[in-house]
């Protein structure tokens, strides 16, 4: 009799309750500065839009911010005018340097990690999670190179996603890849509820945006540069849609052709909010009534 009728409203607007992001930069060495800038751009955006660090798996193969050749230590910029320091002041890298391997990447996705792995290095998603997977590095037709030593193939990636789907590790997945011939990375996917975008078609190279003479290397890749520009305009409660995001970087900006795959995805991207993948708008439920407890007289001691 102390429970009042709970009003069942539509508290939960979308089909997911939590967001995860797996962001991977696969290449090392100073001349690949731009790939680190790419991944940090996306990291910065998802964090700004609300995904907490505990839900972001960031894999960065090299440390550009503290590289001795970096004239501005502890910064990574997205352009020569140093508009945005994508390194920010709060970066939590989960897998770094030589930990960024194909094996670790696939293990993170499929959840097959050794028992000793800490929480922060695990993708603890469930059937209500929307996951953003972003990859950047040097690729070719059907593969993406990791660390100059090995490569992840598109078949392997498709199989990993299928295992995730089978074990109900995601609700919807957005796959984003910025590399040469990037389209080939999602061609083999066969699991449902995946939306994919790639910076270039098969047979095309993805190009970098511009050189910073002070660094002596390219700063960022074209596709991610424009993606960041788009994301910077979004606020946490933004009503921007994925449909708009998929149109980012037309051919005259990117030079390569951005490829999109929507056939596995159930919803119309024009009706999917950007924040369904890039942010984390939590569902909340207002608690209108609580149980009543008797006031059991307490002792006078109070801990602080």
């Amino acid at each position, binding site marked *: *009799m102390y*429970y009042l*009728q*709970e009003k*069942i409203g539509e508290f*939960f607007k979308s*089909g997911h309750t*939590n967001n995860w992001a797996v962001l991977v930069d696969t290449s090392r060495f100073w001349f690949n500065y731009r790939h680190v800038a790419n991944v940090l751009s996306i990291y910065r955006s998802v964090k700004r839009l*609300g995904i*907490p*660090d*505990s839900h972001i798996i960031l894999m960065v193969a090299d440390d550009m911010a503290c590289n001795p050749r970096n004239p501005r230590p502890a910064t990574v910029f997205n352009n020569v005018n140093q508009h945005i320091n994508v390194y920010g002041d709060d970066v939590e890298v989960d897998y770094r340097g030589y930990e960024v391997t*194909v094996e670790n990447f*696939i*293990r993170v996705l*499929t*959840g*097959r*990690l050794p028992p000793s792995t*800490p*929480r*922060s290095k695990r993708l603890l998603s*469930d*059937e*209500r999670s929307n996951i953003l997977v972003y990859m950047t590095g040097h690729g070719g037709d*059907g593969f993406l190179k990791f660390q100059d030593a090995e490569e992840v*193939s598109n*078949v*392997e990636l498709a*199989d990993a996603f*299928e*295992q995730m789907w*089978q*074990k*109900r590790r995601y*609700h919807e997945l957005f796959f984003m890849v910025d590399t040469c011939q990037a389209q080939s990375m999602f061609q083999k996917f066969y699991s449902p*509820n995946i939306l994919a975008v790639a910076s270039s078609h098969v047979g095309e190279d993805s190009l970098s945006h511009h050189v910073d003479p002070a660094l002596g290397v390219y700063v960022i890749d074209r596709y991610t540069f424009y993606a960041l520009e788009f994301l910077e305009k979004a606020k*946490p*409660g933004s009503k921007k849609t994925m449909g708009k995001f998929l149109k980012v970087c037309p051919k005259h900006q990117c030079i390569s052709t951005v490829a999109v795959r929507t056939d596995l995805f159930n919803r119309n991207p024009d009706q999917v909010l950007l924040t369904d993948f890039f942010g*984390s*708008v*939590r*569902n*909340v439920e*207002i*608690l*209108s*009534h*609580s*149980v*009543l*407890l*008797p*006031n*059991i007289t*307490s*002792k006078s001691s*109070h*801990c*602080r």
Partner: protein
Amino acid sequence: MAESKHEEDEKANQAYAALGIGIICIIIGVPLWWKTTEVYRVQLPYNDISDLSQIPLVYLTDIEVISLDKKLDSNLVQISQQLQEDLSRKRGEEVTPIYRVTVRESVGDEQSIFNKYDNKDLSNIDKLLSELSPLQRNKYLIFLIPSNNGKLNVFIGKYYNSFVSSNGKLDKIIPLISKTVQMTIVKEQSVVKSIFNAKGARSLKPDKESMRSVRYNTGYDLTFTLTVPQPDIFDVSWNIREAVDTYLKPLVDHLKEFTQLKINSQIHYFTTLQRKPQKDEKLNEYYFLEQDLPHLINPIESTLGTSASNNPELNFIVYIPTRDQSPLYIKDKNGVKVPTNSFLSPRWGGVMIFNVPEFNESTPLPFPVKVEGKNIMEVFLTQIRLLLNLNSPTSSHEVWFDPVEVNGISNMEIDVWLRNRCFENLATSINTLQSLAQLLGQISNIVIKDDIGSQVEAAVREIKSSLKYLSTGNLVDAFHSSKRAIIASEKAFFDPSLLELLYFPEDQKFAIYIPLFLPISIPLITAMMHAIKWFKGTKKPKTD
């Protein structure tokens, strides 16, 4: 002549040697290569796994109806028959409840308890009745008591007793009893839902309860955090240990056998919500609207810290508003203040805003504030119950519940929880095994070691025994079997050893084999070809 004979012998030797080595390579080398490059896989009970979903899902429940109404004594057989008939009606769901109904007259002890309290204080009667005989899970006693005012209603006790006040009309009482059993005591629908959610929770239409509550795990970490953004102004104290011991411990103890709730607490200073509330100029109050709430959690969450265990975490935060934003309220869609001043985030935890009482400007700082255990535990206990999917019952004019109060959970609720979690575990475990079997067919490079094989077998065995226990009404054993099943099947699916081989496309395999085998195979094949030619040559009679 002798020289050519010698030459012939030499050629014969060479031919035999080449053929011999070639044959050894084919007989020993090829199988050896095949065997050593094979993906190691233990034979799994594929047929058993696919048959698991064919096993009918049945659970048995004991219902004992005890009449205290003398007017009904002559109709007991009729009640029994009709009730059994009512309860065994086909439901068309994939899970079938079976009820074992017994109807009897009351015995002296029961009668005297009722007489002592004159049917009035049902809470107390419930307690005394529960002391008569040891409590038995999954067995529910329904007492038919004469109605005081001629109205029909139901009182659900904390133990396993329910009381139906009867007005003597059988055609009303029997449907009421069967409805109470199905909807309130056993909650058949929640069982159906648990299975559905565990199996196909991907339907795009989300179901509120499944989204809100955490899945079964052998343990959960509960963290209570007191967030004080201005410790220089408010000297906040809370006796969380006492609050937990008083209000939460009973719940923890009740569930201890089934899941471990590990409780931690911490105090955070100088952490703010980082989002400005809106101001109500008239009342000089501050408030957050419902749409602001989703953005409140993240800034706090990053400072909460992570626990060392891999159990799911549930966070409960008490936030003391800053002085310039006090008092702070949460308003719902209609702009009405939420009485509990708290909200819940599904599968994450809850936040409560605790307003400091007003104080005079001249009061020396820091102003002492005491957070009452009762106030916060009322909110958090409700949230914990929601997050653990202990579906809160709703009283109506027909059905009343004895409030659980400090018990945290009633025995009947534990039964419902056990039954639901048991089916959820079984459905999840069956799904996992079937997914694994399917993936093994699709993806050729998954390794299955011996111990994974035995985990799969154990899971299959436990699933079967759990289903058997359920059909005989042994709820606790059924639950424990389902728990072992889910642990074993998760272990089998997520074991790191499954991923020992990475994928190689066929053309890459050639790239590996060619430099390895080409230098050996070219001389071998040419020698064998020469040898075969030589054999053909010797068989032909010489013509010249």
